[in-house]
């Protein structure tokens, strides 16, 4: 994450370099920490937070994850569905679908889920929550990363097949079909 003061300096530089505006006294006086937010796509008014029983998950050992699903609005219903996004991470619990019922604003719902990894790597538990109001639904999905073993997260990603092109440019080549005149696929 960018240091806030660095970002402010960057902004000031942009103002000076990009716009050539007078900015001699333009600055921010701040001693507070910050995180970054963006203009993101719309989703259901649901907040989700979680904590892992242990940050050092181990192969073939069950790990408990405590999930809190909060409705940020009154709702007729709130449902959460848990799925593993990796074959190497299984959900131990028989129940993976949680109908949480009608909600009032800021109502918190606690769910404890147990997962078991069968290999080292970075795996994901997906939480898809759907909130219904007046017959209309909105949803939101987040993923909970489960790091198993001493793995480099970058090495755990699905391979993208980066190659260097003829002129040294980094590209990811994906397949396409060439279809000649007679319609024969090459």
């Amino acid at each position, binding site marked *: 994450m960018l240091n806030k003061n660095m970002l402010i300096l960057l902004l000031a530089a942009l103002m000076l370099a990009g716009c050539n505006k007078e900015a001699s006294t333009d600055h921010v*006086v701040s001693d507070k920490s910050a995180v970054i937010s963006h203009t993101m796509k719309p989703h259901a008014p649901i907040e989700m937070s979680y904590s892992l029983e242990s940050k050092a998950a181990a192969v073939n050992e069950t790990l408990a994850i405590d999930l809190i699903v909060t409705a940020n609005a009154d709702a007729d219903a709130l449902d959460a569905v848990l799925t593993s996004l990796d074959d190497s991470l299984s959900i131990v619990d028989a129940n993976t679908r949680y109908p949480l019922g009608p909600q009032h604003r800021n109502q918190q719902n606690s769910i404890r889920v147990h997962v078991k990894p069968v290999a080292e790597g970075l795996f994901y538990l997906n939480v898809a929550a759907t909130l219904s109001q007046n017959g209309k639904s909105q949803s939101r999905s987040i993923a909970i990363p489960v790091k198993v073993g001493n793995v480099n997260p970058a090495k755990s990603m699905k391979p993208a097949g980066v190659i260097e092109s003829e002129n040294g440019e980094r590209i990811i080549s994906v397949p396409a079909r060439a279809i000649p005149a007679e319609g024969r696929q090459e």
Partner: protein
Amino acid sequence: MGFLKTATMFAISAIILSGCSGSSGGGNTGGTGGTGSTPLDPIACPAADPAPALKSCTATQAQITGTLSFQRVPHTSGTGASLDYSNQSYQPARGISIQAWNVATNNLLDSDTTDSAGNYTFCVDSNTVNVKLRARAEMLKSGSPAWNMSVVDNTSSGALYVAETNAIALQSPINMQVASGWDASGNLIDSSRPAAPFAILDSTYDAMQKVLSACAGAAFPTLKFNWSINNVAITPENPAIGHISSSYFNGTDIYILGMKDSDTDEYDDHVIIHEWGHYFEAFFSRADSIGGQHGLGDKLDIRVAMSEGWGNAWSGIVTDDPIYKDASGTNQATGFYLNVDDNTCATNKGWYSECSIQAILYDLYDSGSDSGDTVNLGFVPMFAVLSLEQRNTLAMTSVFSFIDPLKQDNPASASAIDTLVGNQNIDAITDIYGDSQVSNDPGISTSMFPIHAAIATGQVVNVCSTSEAQNYNGIGVNRFLRFTLPATTNISIIASKTTGPTNTDPDIVLHERGTLKKAAQSTTNNQETLTYTGLPAGTYVIEVYDYNYLDTASGTSCFNVSLTAN
């Protein structure tokens, strides 16, 4: 999770860039309700260059023609939001950079850009034996109009996606198809999902065409989409390994979710266009939005409500389809939809409602006449206001700063526009600041008014920062005051607690046309001071908030805000 101030900085970054992106020239200062303050240059809209001549090959060259297409996965019909793998179809890939390579020598033979039907023409050495074709996930155009849009992998150091054929004997035509990677039953048969980057660019092409309908020679600043099969919604973010909080625009780039069975957005054209709409705001218009989580039922900061309502409406405007769909979940078989032409906004109507804003903006555009909607301006008048008055407004950007000049520019529609906004529990808009809003909406407290309180040097005005709607970007967290200086002045702005929790943390930000002039964000309890030496004549907005309400604290803190000329 700690909420931000850096979001404000990002918005400011976009504003600064916006301010730098226009062409030179004089022009209308735009906006109403104030004086002074240097306006931004107007967006340049020159005539489009003539269509290029058709490519013709020499006698020693062989011509290869063909069509580039990509496989799009549609959503289920009606209001279904899941992806429908059984109805995939190949569609022309428009405006895409495409190359022919000599397989034997690995030399580039020729390049072209596909036309609006996906067609291309290569002129290559007629002695070439085998060729391969490469479509680059980029749209490049110089001249007037001009653009540079591409799709890269943020988890592979920004490598560009390209689709490439196997070797094929020199002949013509050679068509090229990029498959989705999914079969008709929704099984993944190519994990690289080759068509995804081209689907993203296809939505972008549509968005650019809509802008060009109002500004034929528009110059689009460079934009990169960061998409990966590893991109998944996780905070804290780490884009290098695919951890992004959502699909979003960060002031320069767009990031798109891509992890299957969680949330993939490459075929969610409304999502792509929504985020592109934020890019449009940043460079062709202005958004003072501070971003953050949002949805239709939220009561939002006016800047956020306008920006997100715009994003939703824009997706309907570009596609001429008001049904916004966002697929997600296992097999992309769930998700949700929203209808930007639905004026009911049952849970939430008002100037702070993203739902109300999207309904108003879409009704201004569309030719349909649903209940209370007799306006059909189309996009051109909307672009005119967005790119001039909204871009230069002295107020914080909101529905007020957009509707007021729109009415002035289109007086014949003013009454119908009043009706339109009235349907959303918004009083007739007659100024850029929201002073016209006299109704005490039952959904919010009276302390929210006035929306931009007027203050003059020597005065004290009491405002309250509250988390009652929601933290960070809820209506009432950030409060606005405005003032005009007739001449360069040394000023002090002090915010002192009058009521609220024992320890409040007021902060002050000074804006000029949405651009940060100065911010005071100390950790001192219950008081904040901002001084500015030699503040030029002009109209400014003071933003005051309790920092605690950016995060998870709840409550209401009221401050006396004084403005003093030193």
